[in-house]
């Protein structure tokens, strides 16, 4: 008989081991799934997890890893503060979109002026756009007690429609012969989020994501803000007793995650995506939720998890084109990762006992 016994305190060893175990279980079950689809499971797993790094064409895929990983890490870092404090911003995708729209709009407004000040202004606009979009569920929660999960999620769909309307209306390229989509910002030097080292994939968003990881680490381990975030999440009443203002905490955490999501949107629209278009967003804001939890809401963990998630994105694309695997199978596998992580998480707080049936 198997029983679970609560540990007196969470096990450090297991909290480090569970993400690895989750990845391993995902590989096993993913392999079974791919086998059931009639593919060679070993080849598929190798294609997804190893080919982007070590295959013949890895020179092409490695920069992609940074390009895909940066927005995931940036958004997930912001989300991790809210998640730790028990504030559930599920709408990072919407904040990402609005950040992209606002940042791009500033850039397009200056077109075709060239100035070094344009790109920084765009970043600020992106951050502000994401923050303001996140303030809507934040303020509604503080003032009226609405559920921020629902409001932030529904605002994603509003943001998507806003994006479509911008691509077809206000921000449409006047020289685009009526095609939807804005001017291509990556071809407008003052507004382009270019690679810092050509061919490396290293754009300003990657740099920002790395800085965010370091700052988040310092805030969480050394600063009273991070301490209050953790306290508010673990024991809201104790946090109030310790002097944490719950309403301020909600607004700060929503603003932080919205701001970083907005920045990620700006870096994407000015760089890899290049333009405001109907199909701009590809779900980074949602995947970042998985990344945040896969990284155990810890900045360094998020960095590693973001890399892993980017790997499965790229590996998944390779598997789609080379092995003819359906996209749904890849997405299923990504979902499995979060599922297994949450499932094995129980080991951190509970010890498993394979006990004989007790006498009693």
């Amino acid at each position, binding site marked *: 008989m198997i029983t679970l016994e609560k540990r007196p305190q969470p096990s450090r060893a297991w909290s480090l081991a569970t993400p690895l175990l989750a990845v391993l279980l995902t590989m096993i079950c993913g392999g079974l799934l791919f086998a059931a689809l009639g593919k060679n499971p070993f080849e598929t797993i190798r294609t997804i997890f190893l080919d982007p790094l070590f295959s013949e064409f890895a020179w092409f895929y490695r920069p992609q890893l940074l390009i895909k990983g940066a927005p995931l890490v940036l958004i997930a870092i912001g989300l991790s503060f809210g998640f730790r404090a028990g504030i559930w911003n599920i709408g990072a995708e919407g904040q990402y979109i609005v950040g992209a729209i606002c940042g791009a709009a500033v850039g397009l407004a200056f077109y075709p002026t060239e100035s070094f000040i344009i790109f920084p202004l765009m970043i600020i606009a992106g951050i502000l756009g994401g923050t303001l979009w996140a303030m809507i569920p934040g303020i509604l929660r503080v003032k009226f007690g609405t559920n921020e999960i629902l409001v932030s999620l529904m605002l994603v769909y509003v943001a998507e429609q806003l994006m479509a309307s911008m691509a077809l209306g206000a921000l449409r390229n006047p020289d685009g012969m009526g095609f939807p989509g804005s001017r291509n910002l990556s071809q407008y030097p003052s507004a382009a989020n270019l690679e810092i080292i050509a061919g490396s994939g290293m754009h300003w968003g990657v740099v920002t994501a790395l800085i965010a990881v370091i700052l988040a680490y310092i805030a969480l381990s050394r600063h009273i803000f991070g301490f209050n975030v953790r*306290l508010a999440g*673990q*024991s809201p*009443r104790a946090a109030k007793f*310790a002097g944490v203002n719950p309403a301020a905490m909600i607004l700060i955490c929503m603003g932080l995650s919205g701001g970083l999501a907005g920045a990620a949107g700006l870096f994407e629209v000015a760089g890899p995506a290049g333009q405001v278009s109907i199909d701009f967003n590809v779900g980074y804001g949602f995947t970042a939720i998985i990344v945040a939890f896969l990284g155990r809401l810890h900045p360094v963990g998020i960095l590693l998890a973001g890399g892993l998630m980017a790997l499965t994105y790229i590996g998944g694309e390779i598997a789609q084109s080379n092995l003819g695997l359906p996209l749904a199978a890849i997405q299923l596998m990504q979902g499995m990762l979060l599922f297994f992580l949450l499932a094995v998480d129980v080991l951190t707080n509970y010890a498993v006992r394979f006990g004989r049936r007790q006498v009693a």
Partner: protein
Amino acid sequence: MTEPLLRLTGLTKAYPGVVANKDVSFEIQPGEVHALLGENGAGKSTLVKTIYGLVKPDSGTMTLEGTTFTPAEPRAARAAGVAMVFQHFSLFDAMNVAENIALGMENPPPQREIAAQVRKVSDQYGLPLDPDRIVGELSAGERQRVEIIRCLLQDPKLLIMDEPTSVLTPQEVAILFETLKQLSGEGTAILYISHKLEEIRTLCDNATVLRLGEVVGECDPKATSAREMAELMVGTKLHVPEKAAKPAGETVLALQALSAPAPHQFGTALRDITIDISKGEVLGIGGVAGNGQDELVAALSGEMRVAPDMVQFQGQPIGQLPPNARRKIGLLAAPEERMGHAAAPDMSLTENAIMTAMTRENLTTKGFLHWAKAKRFAEGVIKDFDVRTPGPANAARSLSGGNLQKFVIGREILQAPDVLVVNQPTWGVDASAAAAIRQALLDLAAKGAAVICISQDLDELMEISDRFAALNEGRLSAPRPAQGLTVEEIGLMLGGAHDMEVAHVDA
């Protein structure tokens, strides 16, 4: 010699790192009121949970009426005739009494039938209770009656009661004891757990004393003094707090017509509380739980803001200051609920020290934490207040209730407050730890600080208070010198019969 109702033989239960029960054996006869005594962590809870089917022993046997008794779960224990009233009630505030009782039943009969049964049982045992009332509106004593009646409807052979009187007024205790005596007279055995030794002396026929999981003695409580029993529990001589006489100091904290609406649906509004507290004084505030204690602490700690003039600290209006600003000027508080309010269960003791000591102990510079300094402070609390734990890196929830309470109180006292507000400082704490905490409060007052001690333990309040006041429905009675107050006078103050109000004592 008749067959005992319940016989425990060699019960042993080990948890990782600790043996909760070791070779525990004793017997309970039908109709006997049997006390189970022991410090916190002595293994009382594990033992009763074993009997109630919540814990499976590693070895040992139980027999109930001569047949082997191995309850796999509480349901099986209830079916065999064992019922339990827990210290913490498991009732839904928003439902009425009959609905709450139906929820605990396997096949609940229709509401009307339950209501009729409740009325019948409550008449029979002198426990007044209206089955149609919403539980959220009941006093703690009435809630306990719901739990007891829920048990009595099962017609139990053995009734286990865990700390039943901690939330009751003396009058309510008397009613409860009448009921228990009647039950025992009808042949129901009662296993009674309490820290209050005088109660055990008046009520119980036999007592089994546990220490560190082992039975260290049995005694006849009627023939043994409370002090002897306490010493049997702790294994050493008991240290009784000493109170030094002192002159009245100047006023340090003044409450002026402090009123506040109830913070939530089942909270209590504070009404027009006016009192001055002077330096070096211990003000004891008694009252039945739910009469505004939590709200008063919140208004003093800064968790609940009130108009500035309502709370004055050394003449300054501070009613609107947030918690840390109040700590800075020297007004500290320790709320009742340890886990999740006074301390964060999953955080380490060092982190829990930062929680309230950050301002006064200068544990931050520009928001950056001084971990080494915080750790030293936590270690100081652990050492000075004899907190039993391997070290400050351990999570708060790994500590026993009494040890965590020592840590929480010690954390505030070591910050040298000018005014310390404590709510239920020794609730669920064993005798020796309770004595240490009370002594620490008295020492603090002797150094010139004012201490406001809110408690439901009247013996405690009488032991340490200079003045005594009672909270009743959010109103505070006029304070009276604690010396010379009789139990009857206190009971009337608690019941709200002070001044011109009409007595409102149930039953």
